[in-house]
């Protein structure tokens, strides 16, 4: 095309997956390959028989593998109206041939169908030999198949994980994820929580639920890194109806749990604050993200934080 403008980023954003596929797929991937052909010397009656037998609406006429014309039902109707159905195919075939190359992208064929009033395109190889036939229906089928393939690939991982619970029969099925969190390991701080968030998403949780649980365990994880004596553990139990998250450690325990729940209250050191923590929002954030939060803390046995998120059936 002569005045084909370059796509701006803005336009590119609007291109649908179907249009994209038009640029990705080659004609050879969507065309019909077992092509019925006519010979120029065949009678129109023989062509009619072939068309009926194969339930097609037209076919190319070839001579030694090269396309010399095309016959459609319209040409047959003309022959019938003239009462000359015994005449040769070469007398009635269309000769102003429009073809496409098998290696061209599907979008090129779409342009031809849009501009020219043709129903089918003979598809040629690099030696101009007929290798297939393309209709708009072939393109639609090809695009749908490709979309289906895309979709299946994307869904497969998610499907496998999210159907885990349906595939296993038991009185109570759950999946438990455990992470050891090391004291002062700021370098990896938040890594476990990101793994948990991704796992929940894979298991079929909505973005919203995965994000909320992610925030809750992230805060809990950072608390284990910042405030414990020896680090601690994160334990996430996933069941079809709820997600239970636990963070536990062996000390030193929270002095005043009530105070710790006050927004902005923090016991973090200046050093920790310089790292961007100790806003005094950790437990506050957790409480706003999950459905239930319980803290048990003592100097003797450390702190246990329970967080529960209930899932309704739509999630």
């Amino acid at each position: 095309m002569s005045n084909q403008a370059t796509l701006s980023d803005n336009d590119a954003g609007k291109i649908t997956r179907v249009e994209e596929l038009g640029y990705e797929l080659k004609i050879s991937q969507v065309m019909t390959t077992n092509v019925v052909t006519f010979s120029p010397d065949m009678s129109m009656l023989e062509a009619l028989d072939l068309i009926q037998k194969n339930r097609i609406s037209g076919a190319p006429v070839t001579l030694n593998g090269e396309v010399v014309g095309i016959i459609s039902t319209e040409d047959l109707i003309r022959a019938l109206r003239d009462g000359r159905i015994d005449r040769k195919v070469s007398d009635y075939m269309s000769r102003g041939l429009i073809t496409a190359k098998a290696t061209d992208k599907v979008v090129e064929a779409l342009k031809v169908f849009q501009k020219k009033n043709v129903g089918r395109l003979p598809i040629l190889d690099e030696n101009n030999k007929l290798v297939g036939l393309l209709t708009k229906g072939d393109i639609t089928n090809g695009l749908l198949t490709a979309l289906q393939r895309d979709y299946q690939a994307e869904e497969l991982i998610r499907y496998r994980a999210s159907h885990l619970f349906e595939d296993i029969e038991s009185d109570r099925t759950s999946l438990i994820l455990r992470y050891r969190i090391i004291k002062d390991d700021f370098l990896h701080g938040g890594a476990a929580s990101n793994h948990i968030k991704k796992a929940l998403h894979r298991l079929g949780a909505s973005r919203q639920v995965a994000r909320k649980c992610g925030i809750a365990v992230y805060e809990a994880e950072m608390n284990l890194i910042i405030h414990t004596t020896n680090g601690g553990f994160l334990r996430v139990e996933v069941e079809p109806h709820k997600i239970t998250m636990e963070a536990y450690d062996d000390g030193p325990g929270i002095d005043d749990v009530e105070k710790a729940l006050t927004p902005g209250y923090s016991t973090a050191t200046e050093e920790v604050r310089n790292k961007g923590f100790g806003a005094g929002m950790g437990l506050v954030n957790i409480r706003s993200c999950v459905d239930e939060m319980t803290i048990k803390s003592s100097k003797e046995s450390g702190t246990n934080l329970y967080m529960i998120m209930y899932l309704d059936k739509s999630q």
Partner: protein
Amino acid sequence: MNVMQVIEICKATLLTPDVDLDVDIKGGFSGDLMSDVLASVQAESVLITGLCNPQVVRTALIGNVRMIIFARGKKPGEDIINLAIDENLPVAYSPLGLYEISGRLTQAGLPSYEMEMNLFPKD
């Protein structure tokens, strides 16, 4: 607004040229304390921060943030950049401060994606 528009407005330098830059940034959030970010950032936004460590990237990922601008000329190290690349998150740094960047983006039409916080509703 897209990633490159944000970068141009805040005189920033992109540090992750190979990640997917064709994402729609719907709003902005500024802050240095990660818990504050998680408390009130809305998803699909750009996070502007003066803090410069790997937790910024992990916080952004947890909060479904779509882009990070490190302000006040703080250029993040390789570890931070590589983490962002692994997670396909655009990251840039700017010589400007938080207030200046926020003001410029707001003037350019990018709304605040900071939720109002009413933490003491009885007061």
